[in-house]
């Protein structure tokens, strides 16, 4: 069994605290070389498509933190394919690399982690 931690984010990127704090948590583990991976499901998959004009809402765009994943040598986020099809049925180019998982694959992958933290 892997010793890695899975950070599972389900909240919308516009609930900025949850998304931002899940990403900060992921990066903090990576910074101390603790193996960690991010999983996006539900409305959280919308993080992959940088918002058109989040400034108009006086909110912070935290999706840019995904751009730091490579620098921290983090694996690409796991993404629930079903949620992606639901929430971004006609995605423009996704802004970040990711690993799509079917429902069956999600179950398999989740069992693989030593611990799971949900946001």
């Amino acid at each position, binding site marked *: 069994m892997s010793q890695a931690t899975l950070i599972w984010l389900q909240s*919308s990127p516009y609930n900025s605290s949850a998304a931002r704090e899940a990403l900060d948590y992921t990066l903090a583990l990576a910074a101390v070389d603790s193996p960690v991976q991010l999983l996006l499901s539900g409305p959280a998959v*919308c993080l992959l*498509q940088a*918002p*058109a004009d*989040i400034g*108009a809402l006086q909110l912070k765009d935290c999706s840019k933190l995904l751009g730091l994943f490579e620098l921290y040598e983090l694996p690409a986020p796991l993404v629930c394919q079903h949620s992606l099809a639901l*929430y971004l049925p006609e995605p*423009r180019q996704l802004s970040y690399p990711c690993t799509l998982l079917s429902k069956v694959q999600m179950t398999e992958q989740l069992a693989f982690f030593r611990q799971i933290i949900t946001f």
Partner: protein
Amino acid sequence: MTLAPMKLVHWIYPELPAQSLLAQLAPQDLLLLRQDGCYSLALPWPELPCRLRVLATDLTARGLNAKAPWQTIDDSDWVELAAQASQVVLWPH
């Protein structure tokens, strides 16, 4: 000004509302998606008897587009609808 018995219902979550909530909508009512409610545009809504609207600022900021039968309104339309409505309600999660 005569007030039509129009409910203005706000929906702000990225899921579909409960069936028991949807059952409360009448033809003269107006359902408005705003905030993360805009994401629910992509979900399979049942057929509803009322007017269906999305707040434009919240929609376009998310990089989404309106699709029929939903129509966009701007912030000043929103205020006028709230002023005219006989009842304004924020549906719970």
